[in-house]
């Protein structure tokens, strides 16, 4: 499958010289979360046209959005209590940047912000209206995501191969959220993106995970009765197995 993929990318490359272009494809269109899911690796293959030695490649994989509430802890009566809530709407639950060189060497902060690359920029847009300085809150969201490996940066995660081809390795951690993902690939030259392309994929539950999840959310009343019945049966079976002394 990979060979076929590369072949199509290569034939596209054989077209006569034009403006720089970038193409990409993910090895999976859907990633399935099954009962043994403990994280996986996702490979993005791509090809560029007109790649020069100074050019760099940046890959951004962005997961489904979620609404967050961030609270600062405050001590009151000797115990730490959550206070000063700040809400963020539509923050990506997963966000990773892979690049062929450390991103700060590829482009300036302003250039990245202008192109909507980087989590800080997204957080700034998603924060609900306030006069407060939110930089501590942004940092808290980034820390929380980084703890579960949901927000990562791979400064050498993009490998440039011969003939304008490249390969990016993206890690999906055990806590990978379910939903739609988009991968944006950028070709940077002299600190500016000169070409970009996006592709998408889905992470979804499969097998038993899916059956249970859909049962619990699709028919919650029936599911509740099922859980209770199963537990009673288990208790009764245990009594029958061990109990008769």
């Amino acid at each position, binding site marked *: 499958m990979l060979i076929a993929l590369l072949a199509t990318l290569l034939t596209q490359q054989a077209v006569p010289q034009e403006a720089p272009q970038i193409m990409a494809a993910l090895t999976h269109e859907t990633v399935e*979360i*099954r*009962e*043994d*899911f*403990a994280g996986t690796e996702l490979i993005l293959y791509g090809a560029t046209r007109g790649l020069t030695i100074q050019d760099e490649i940046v890959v951004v994989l962005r997961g489904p959005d*979620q*609404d*967050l*509430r*961030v*609270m*600062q*802890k405050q001590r009151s009566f*000797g*115990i*730490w*209590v*959550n206070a000063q*809530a700040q*809400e963020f*709407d539509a923050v990506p639950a997963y966000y990773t940047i892979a690049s062929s060189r450390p991103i700060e060497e590829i482009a300036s902060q302003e250039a990245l912000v202008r192109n909507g690359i980087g989590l800080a920029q997204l957080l700034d847009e998603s924060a609900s209206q306030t006069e407060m300085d939110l930089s*501590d*809150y942004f940092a*808290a*969201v980034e*820390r*929380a*995501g980084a703890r579960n490996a949901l927000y990562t940066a791979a400064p050498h995660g993009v490998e440039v191969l011969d003939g304008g081809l490249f390969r990016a390795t993206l890690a999906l951690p*055990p*806590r990978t*959220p*379910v939903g739609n993902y988009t991968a944006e690939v950028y070709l940077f030259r002299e600190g500016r993106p000169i070409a970009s392309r996006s592709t998408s994929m889905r992470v979804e*539950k499969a097998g*038993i*995970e*899916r059956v*249970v*999840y859909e049962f*619990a*959310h699709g028919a*919650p*009343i029936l*599911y*509740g*009765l*099922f*859980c*209770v019945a*199963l*537990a*009673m049966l*288990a*208790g*009764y079976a*245990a*009594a029958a*197995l*061990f*109990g008769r002394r």
Partner: protein
Amino acid sequence: MQIYLPIAEISVNIFLLLGLGAGVGFLSGMFGVGGGFLMTPLLMFIGIPPAVAVSTEANQIVASSASGALAHWRRKTLDPKMGLLLLIGGSAGSIFGVQLFSFLRGLGQIDLIISLSYVSFLGIIGGLMLIESVRAIMRRRHPEQRREGGRTGHRKRGWIDALPFKMRFPRSGLYISVIPPIAIGFFVGTLAAIMGVGGGFVMVPAMIYILRMPTSVVVGTSLFQILFVTALTTFLQAAQNQTVDVVLAMLLTVGGVIGAQFGARAGRHVKGEELRALLAFMVLAVCLKLGWDLVITPADMFVVLPHGGEAAH
């Protein structure tokens, strides 16, 4: 071997879960307690979201109390009339508790309330149990002081007897107002929903010291109430909050059932007072750990909570 839990949405080692179930099952078999007060905090320590931990533990308690309640029913060592009253109160408490849980979760304060409830209840119960068992051990060592005037029946009638709506409870040999059992049931039902416990550690002392029920029917009646209240709590949490993870509950149950068998056997070789002192220390240890976490300066001064789109709303 990792297993991905469909509702908790995290990947956990399957042997860790079976081991936790077996360990807590061993202790509950040994001490004759439900173990919810140990299991729920442990689940949260390993990273299960609090809402899922509490609801799923209620589901596990259904399994672990079902066999016990059945045995007591057969042996007629429970008071069905009293159990029914406790259950009426308990059902109302459970419904109230689940609503309160959703409300506090919406405010972002549910973790704090769970921790505070644990610290206060475990502290009080553990402390009382420790004092009581140490006294019992002392008494056994100095048998000349044994003639205590304790609970010998001729205690003066208290406020309980002044309450209206009296009812006869033939199995317990009591004639008391229906208000205290309903109130106790309500209180325990609320705890069950918020803390993910059966509530035996509150109900058993309350039945002995407040209702003055004979000890022979206390455990059976308490199990009867716990079975139905946790069943209702499981159902409500599943229907309203979608926080019951049946895979997690079943893994804990399998471990728990096996652990309880060995625990019950081990318990026969240890003396009652020492056993209770040991349990008291364990309860206090969990209490101190949770209390300590509330007062030490947190590693991260911020918490990030899911908001809005969550199942709870």
